[in-house]
């Protein structure tokens, strides 16, 4: 990550970030409720697969005013990701150490406004959680998302308030036929 000190502290997404900075490589969600789909789009882009948010929302199923469900997002990623299988749902919070030993995953967190927002968890180092947030500075239309850091205790509390919802890779597809 690096360069945390150059970012403005605080999040337009209403999460208690230690530091946050714009990153043109992080996708910006295009709709108010599409944060989880935008995170899925980012994970696909990381793997070299470019899918529009609109295409993803059509595959996942988008309830206007509600957003997307983790199990549907996991199923879409499972189908589209070139190398990893995915699953989504409410997970035992003690599984976080296992989740963070693998590839990046999507977590739902409660914001200051009481709403639920999805971010990508890249890693946890020394009780600091490193995330990518598709909200950006001002939400849809920001142009890009942000990279941010969060205290682990704060993350765990926000995650619990969002039912410990996660979309995560659970296997490699090596050896699986087309």
């Amino acid at each position: 990550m690096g360069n945390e000190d150059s970012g403005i502290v605080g999040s337009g997404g209403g999460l208690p970030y230690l530091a946050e900075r714009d990153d043109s490589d992080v996708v910006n969600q295009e709709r108010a409720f599409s944060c989880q789909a935008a995170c899925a789009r980012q994970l696909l882009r990381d793997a070299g697969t470019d899918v529009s948010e609109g295409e993803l929302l059509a595959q996942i199923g988008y309830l206007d005013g509600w957003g997307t469900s983790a199990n549907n997002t996991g199923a879409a990623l499972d189908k589209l990701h070139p190398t990893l299988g995915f699953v989504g749902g409410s997970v035992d919070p003690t599984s976080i150490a296992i989740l963070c030993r693998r590839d990046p995953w999507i977590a739902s967190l409660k914001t200051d406004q009481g709403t639920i927002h999805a971010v990508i968890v890249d890693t946890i180092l020394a009780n600091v959680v490193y995330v990518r947030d598709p909200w950006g500075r001002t939400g849809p239309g920001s142009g890009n998302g942000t990279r941010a850091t969060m205290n682990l205790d704060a993350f765990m509390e926000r995650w619990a308030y969002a039912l410990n919802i996660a979309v995560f890779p659970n296997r490699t597809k090596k050896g699986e036929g087309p």
Partner: protein
Amino acid sequence: MMKTVADAKAFFENEGLYVSTDKDRSLWIATNVRDAGNGVLISDHACSLIKGKQEWTAVFPAEASCTFQISGALPELAATISVVFAKQRVTGDPLRDAFRQVVPDSERLIARQVVAHV
């Protein structure tokens, strides 16, 4: 008298529910827990119970990634959670439907995904 995370864990385990705790601040209560791979445990029927500064909050699934949130005293919330899971066991429906059947005026308790930030 139920006062602590440990008290609540014992209560729910006695009800036959799977319970996981995060330090002394929250519980993850679930049924039909399965290993989704490499030991990551997942459930289609789970709720959270979180200790706040003055009261506790129970969180149940609603549609999409949204939740129902209900706050109050630990014994009352524990009783509600127990009844919701009992209802789900009988009907086999999603936990959100059991919550709606058990808790009156449940729609006002919904926390939605991001709408707008100020």
